Each structure stands twice: as C-alpha cells, then as structure tokens.
C-alpha cells in the first residue's frame, strides 16, 4: 500500500518536473546546447514564487512572475554565450553559480516554508475533495498540456522553424537571413522560463522553496528526455515526442520511488540519477550494435548458403 501511495505521488512529481524537462528539451535537443544554468533557474523559479506568495500574491501570478525570472536567467546565459562568445557550457555554469547567490538574495535565507500562504494546490483542495496526490496530478496535467501544446504550436511557426534549424545547421539559417544569435538567446530564455515555471509549481506543491532545490535538475531533465526516447523511439511524431518527455519524467520519479521504498539511502539518490542517465544513453547504442551484428550474420549467412 505504501508503495502504491508513493507511486501515485511519483506520478504527480513526475508531471510537475516534466515541465522542466520540456524546457531542457528545447535547448538540449532542439538547439543542441547543454545549458547548465537550469540548476540555478529552477531554484530561481521556486524562490521568486515563494517570495511572491509570502507577500500575498495570487498563486497563478506568482507562477507567471517566476517564469519571467526564468526568462531573465536564460537571457543572461544567452548573452554570455552569443554576445560574449563563451562556450554554452561555460556560460551556463557561470549563470548557475551566480544564480545561487541571487536566489539567496531573493529569498533572504536558504529556505522559505509556505505553511501559511495559499498555493494553487491548497486552493484546489479546498474546492475539490481529492487527495493531495490527485490534486498534484490534475494541476500538473493542466500545466503540462498547455506547455506541450504551446511548444508544438511555437515550433511550427516561422520563428520556431528558424529555432529548430539553428540547432540543426546554423550556417544555413544565417544564409537565409536569420540572426542565429537571436534564435539561441530566445531559445535559452524560453527554456529557462519553463524550468522556472516548473520550479514554481514544485515549490507550491511542496509548500517550501529551498536554494538547493535545483541541484542536479539538468541531469534529471536529461534522464526524463532519454528515458522517453528509449521508450518511444527517437523517430516518433513530434506531439508524441513532447509527451514522451513528460512520461519519461514520470518513469524517472517512479524508479526513484521504488528504489527508495526498497531501502535506498536518499544520499545515494544523485548517484542513482547519474546511473539512470548513463544507462539510458548507453542502451540505444548497445541495441543498435546488436541489431547490426544480427543482421550481418543473417544476411551474410543467406548469401553464402545461396552460392554454395
């Protein structure tokens, strides 16, 4: 029973964190940039949201403010990467480092509990008689549906097409009269905005914001993306690919819930996450190799049988 309950909790967590994974997908897969600033911007989202809630701001407005703060964080990474011509990894690391101090400044301390403040989750629980797990799932689904639909629409527009092409062939994009720096800057802003939105939702759900809440977020996001890819395949249609990321995020949370139930020490969680990502990235390579070898044996065997 305990495991069922924790799995239910894992689904809700997975959906909320899935929005962060969608943001990371924009940079990691669409723009082909590994943006490490998300560890910071996730916590920034939480911090801004918590401070706003304590000040009595409506929970929805708090989420919007957090998202805007994420845009700003992404802008800084984008500025360092494009205008200052730093490698994307370094730009991300610098922003992440700077955000740690900034997040502490925003909150004024290392964590803010939200026991007294109203949150989306508490508000909904007052209206609908559901367990907190179900409420998390419902709110998560609404937000992730909006985000998935929004990304799907956006990447189909003229602007979005250029964003996709920038991650594919910058040279071609410039030759067609588009400033690739603007595209990268915008992509990074959008990505970090979604990450911060996810941070704000997680903060409201847990009723606490912590300066360390974003640690390892990038790896969790990558885990969600690659788990989704392993399950649905890289060639799936675009809507399915976006959905697969949220599903990947849920599966990641379920794996974590199960191993914790089995008695894993929470200190070992980061190690486990790293292992999941490493395994999920390696499995397709091994499967591919095996397939090729089987195919070779089969085809070669056939050829020589025929000739014999």
């Amino acid at each position, binding site marked *: 029973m305990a495991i069922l309950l924790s799995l239910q909790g894992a689904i809700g967590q997975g959906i909320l964190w899935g929005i962060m994974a969608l943001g990371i997908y924009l940079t990691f897969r669409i723009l082909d940039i590994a943006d490490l600033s998300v560890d910071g911007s996730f916590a920034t989202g939480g911090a801004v949201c918590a401070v706003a809630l304590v000040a009595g701001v409506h929970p929805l407005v708090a989420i919007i403010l957090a998202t805007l703060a994420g845009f700003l964080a992404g802008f800084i990474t984008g500025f360092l990467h494009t205008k200052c011509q730093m490698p994307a990894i370094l730009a991300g690391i610098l922003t992440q480092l700077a955000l740690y101090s900034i997040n502490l400044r925003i909150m004024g301390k290392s964590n803010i509990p939200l026991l007294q403040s109203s949150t989306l989750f508490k508000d909904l629980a007052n209206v609908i008689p559901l367990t907190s797990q179900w409420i998390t799932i419902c709110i998560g689904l609404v937000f992730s549906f909006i985000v998935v639909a929004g990304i799907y629409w*956006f990447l*189909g*527009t*003229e*602007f*979005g*097409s*250029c964003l*996709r*092409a920038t991650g*594919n*062939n910058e*040279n*071609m*994009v*410039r*030759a*067609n*009269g*588009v*400033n*690739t720096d603007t595209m990268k800057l915008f992509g990074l802003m959008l990505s970090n905005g979604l990450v911060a939105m996810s941070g704000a939702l997680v903060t409201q759900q847990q009723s606490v914001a912590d300066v360390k809440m974003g640690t390892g977020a990038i790896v969790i996001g990558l885990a969600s993306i690659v788990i989704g890819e392993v399950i649905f395949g890289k060639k799936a249609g675009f809507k399915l690919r976006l959905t697969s990321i949220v599903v990947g995020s849920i599966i990641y949370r379920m794996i974590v819930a199960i191993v914790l139930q089995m008695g894993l020490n929470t200190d070992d969680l980061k190690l486990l996450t790293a292992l999941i990502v490493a395994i999920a990235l390696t499995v397709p390579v091994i499967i591919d190799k095996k397939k090729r070898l089987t195919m070779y044996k089969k085809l070669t065997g056939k050829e020589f049988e025929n000739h014999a």
Partner: protein
Amino acid sequence: MLKLEKVSKSFHVGTPNEKCVINKLDLELKQGDFVTVIGGNGAGKSTLLNLIAGVYPIDCGIMTLDGQDISLSPEYQRAKFIGRVFQDPMMGTASDMQIIENLAMAARRGQKRSLHWGVTKKEKEEYYEIVKALGLGLEDRLTTKVGLLSGGQRQALTLLMATLNKPKLLLLDEHTAALDPATSTKVLTLTKQIVTEQHLTAMMVTHNMKDAIDIGNRLIMMYDGRIIYDVQGEEKKQLTVNDLLKKFEEAIGEEFVNDRMLLG
C-alpha cells in the same frame, strides 16, 4: 551593382602563419553579369565569396551592393540580398527538417520571422509545382527530411532555395565539386537555366576550366589573393583551355605551369 574597392583579408594575423588571402582586390559587377571564377588552391576564390557574403569580416576596403555600403554588415543581414550555394551539400540545408520546411524558410529570406505558421497551405501547393520542375521526383516527398536526400538532390534543393526569393546576387562556391559527373552536369544545367530565367547576377567558383569558359559572360582568374585576368563578352567566348593556361603562366611569370596548378 556589386563593387569591391581595395578589399583585403588576412588570416592568422600576428602568428607565423599569417597569410594575406585577399590582397587589395578591386572588382565591379554589372547587373546581370554571370562571372565564373577560377584559380588554384589558395588563390582566394572561396574566401572572396565568403567575404562578399559576410561570413568573415573584411580587414579593410569598401564593399557596396546596389550603392548600399555592406562592408561591415553581418552575414544574416546581407543574406537579404544574397543567395548562396556551398561546396558541401550538407551546408545549405537543415537535414533534420522536411524539404518543404527548408523551402519555406528560404522563401522568407530577408523577411522578419513572425508567429504565423512556418509553412502555409498555399505554399504547399506552390512548392509542389516548383519542385516538380526540378525533375528529380522530389515533389511527392516534400515531407521527407532533407538528410535522407543524396548530395546532388540536396544541391539542387539548395540552389532552388537560394533563388526562390529572387536574390540580387547569387554566389555559387564550387557547388558541383562534390558531385559525380552526371549529377554535376544536371545541377550545372539547372544553374544556367535559373540564372537565365531570373536574369540573376551571379558568381560561380569552379575548378573546371571548360565550364568556366562555357558558362556565363565573364571570367576572372585569381592568383595569390588578386585578380590576374578578367575577360568578358566575345573575347571570353573565343577562349580555350590552353589560352587560360598561357595567361596563368604569363601572370605568375613561371614556365612550368601545368593544368594541375590551375585545377588542383
């Protein structure tokens, strides 16, 4: 329409490898000129095209296009007026995107990108006809990812993209060099056809001297970052490959020039 005055470019400045690739080069193109550019490796042909396109900034000199100074404007802004096809078939298209998406992006060259759909319904029909005219059988595969096409198909597509939204200037940087002879001929024929039909001003770098003589109305030969021979009109039509080799000898003052120096 395109005018270059005393344009220079050096690479690796301040290192022992410093090399002046384009040396105080003057060039003026008239509206409708179709110029072929020849010269040995390292003569600066590709660099010249890249400087005009704005891939690298020039060190000094003035470059104007239709009277507008473009000496310092970035690559993406010049792309408004300049269509390009590259030597590497991978460079001109986005391989993970569909043929139609690539075309739609090229059709908007020089325009502001909005939040309207990247490919409209009307365009889908238009492109079907345009691609059909290529005669490559791609019109039924418009939603295929470009990465699945052959090099020749990609070059033909890039050429189409570069001219879909009529450019003031078309730059072709050895765009058939990576193709097999049959495909190369096909793409070249298509090039001639498009340039003639649209009355484009174009520059084409080639290593094939016969093509350089046969195609276009003007030929320039480059050596060591300078233009050493510039011929047009009737005079160009009378040229033979041997004439070109002789010109090359004269210009660099060496006798043991063979065609390999020019072709190589």
